């Protein structure tokens, strides 16, 4: 049975490459960004967190294709004379890290609860479904804003900045588990009724073993599909919080923080400080969404060719 898992995926990926050049482009772009983030310390010409390396005389230099630029700073500099290219690399690194970790939490909680609900049914199922409905009716972004605002008002800006990464991961991670729980529950209901599950039970496998070894591998593909769009959502939520001053601090900026700190400068003509990190953010989000759409269409036979 487990051999059957990989076949449709392989076919889906073959389809994918042929029919969707956009998705391949998006995947390539994401790959480049991810690698650049991973190796940021090796690629970046400057350590943007090392205040000693900054020189105020270099402040607000435009990117190289504009007049008055300095070849040392390909994408220009910000108000402190920080190399924008380096800052964006490190910023994207934090944005991706928070986005991915938040989805790890979402999926861990959501898939466990979804499996529980789908496999055991009955009261557990209705309780979990109810909780998911309540959680979903509260807007994730609004909840995240409120929770981060309370932490900020309670702890003060300085203390918040120490715990920013784990807090953001937890807040965004806890808010969206129902998305995974619903998908996992629906898929589990289908799988649990199949013969192989009954067979496993007949030979005396425990519930845990059935769920873990037999059902989970068979419901992975829809979960992978929603993970992609969830990562995009988490990155967007993190950027929004940081833009509001409720996320990553200026000393450890994510893309959202960079956009926020460069925002005032657009009125002084230094548009690149805020627009360039913004374009990187948009590029990442569009790529993930395009890839997610393509994955969903590729793995869902009903949507193929539409």
């Amino acid at each position, binding site marked *: 049975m487990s051999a059957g898992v990989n076949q449709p995926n392989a076919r889906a990926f073959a389809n994918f490459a042929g029919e969707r050049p956009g998705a391949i482009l998006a995947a390539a772009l994401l790959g480049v960004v991810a690698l650049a983030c991973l190796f940021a310390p090796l690629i970046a010409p400057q350590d943007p967190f090392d205040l000693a390396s900054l020189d105020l005389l270099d402040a607000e230099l435009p990117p190289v294709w504009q007049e008055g630029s300095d070849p040392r700073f390909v994408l220009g500099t910000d108000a402190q004379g920080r190399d924008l290219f380096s800052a964006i690399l490190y910023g994207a690194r934090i944005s991706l890290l928070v986005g991915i970790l938040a989805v790890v939490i979402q999926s861990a909680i959501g898939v466990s609860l979804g499996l529980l609900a789908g496999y055991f049914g009955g009261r557990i199922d209705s309780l979990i479904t109810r909780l998911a409905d309540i959680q979903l009716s509260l*807007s994730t972004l609004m909840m995240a*804003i409120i929770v981060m605002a309370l932490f*900020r008002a309670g702890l003060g800006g300085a203390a918040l900045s120490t715990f920013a990464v784990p807090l953001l991961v937890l807040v965004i991670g806890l808010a969206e588990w129902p998305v995974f729980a619903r998908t996992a529950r629906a898929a589990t209901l289908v799988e649990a009724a199949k013969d192989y599950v009954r067979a496993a039970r007949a030979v005396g496998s425990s519930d845990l073993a059935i769920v873990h070894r037999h059902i989970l591998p068979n419901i992975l593909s829809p979960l992978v599909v929603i993970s992609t769009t969830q990562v995009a959502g988490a990155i967007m939520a993190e950027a929004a919080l940081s833009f509001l*001053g*409720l996320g990553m601090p200026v000393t450890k900026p994510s893309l959202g923080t960079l956009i926020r700190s460069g*925002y005032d400068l*657009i009125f002084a003509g230094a*548009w690149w400080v805020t*627009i360039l990190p913004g374009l990187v*953010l948009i590029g990442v989000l569009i790529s993930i969404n395009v890839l997610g759409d393509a994955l969903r269409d590729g793995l869902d036979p009903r949507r193929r060719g539409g």
Partner: protein
Amino acid sequence: MNAFASGAAFIARRLVQALLVMLAILVIAFAVRQSLGDPLREIMGQAVPESERAALRHELGLDAPWPVQFTRYLGQAATGDLGTSIIYKKPTIEVVLAKFPASFELVLGASLIVLLLSLPGGIYSAVRPRNLGARLVLGLSVLGISVPVFLTGILLITIFSVWLGWLPAFGRGETVDLGVWQTGLLTLDGLEHLLLPALTLSSIMLPLFIRLVRGAMLDELGHDYVRTARAKGASPLRVWVVHALRNALLPLAAVGGLQVGTLIAYTLLTETVFQWPGMGFLFLEAVTRADIPLITTYLVLVGLLFVVVNTLVDMVSLALDPRVSLEGGR
């Protein structure tokens, strides 16, 4: 049970549920006040000796057990007293409500834009799904979903305010005082100031609504009554708008109503970008300056808005659509 009685029971249950949610919100607001806010600081500042503080704390009943204090908080909340703002030295509810017109007009402007664009866009892409235009509409809506709302605002400001100099970038402009309501809709300057923020806020709702209209229309167009209308010789436009759209609007209103929390969050982001003096902008100011009474008042009022809208949407769906299940199941 007849339909009327079960309808009344549904409404009663829904109202009780709304009250419970509101109570939960008040409990949270109270807990935040108890743990983060220090009412003494609001009254006497920080440079007062501890003995005097203790005396006043006792006098004000702040050392009473929390159920007593919570009951008192509830009683005050019921009369509209949610505390005094530390920044503004005025009742918080006055401060927050004074900012309501600005937020409301922003949402109104954005909703108008969404309505004017999503209906034709959604209908068009549903009735002519293979056309280039329809694909363009859907393609743009993917783009819209992927661009965070604050970046849309920043891009619009950069282009239209900084580079072209056509439109103002921040504030509400000239407003007219109508007694309880400060409106920016009656002056040209006010409308100019509203245009970019409203466009920004609508950009994030548009993709969702275009997809919703399209989906709902596609559903309705497949029904028999549409074929009957066509067979009777009704013009295509009449079939789309009068027949199908009317039925498609119902699920749309329900989903639109459920997005109210998200809408508040997006409004807050838009207000921050454009320094629009609304409730969200005020909330962030309160957060930066740790004005706990103002923060909790905002939470309570936004929670109230959320509960009222959701309850109304449920009741309106019940009134409009006899098929809505009264048992709450599907």
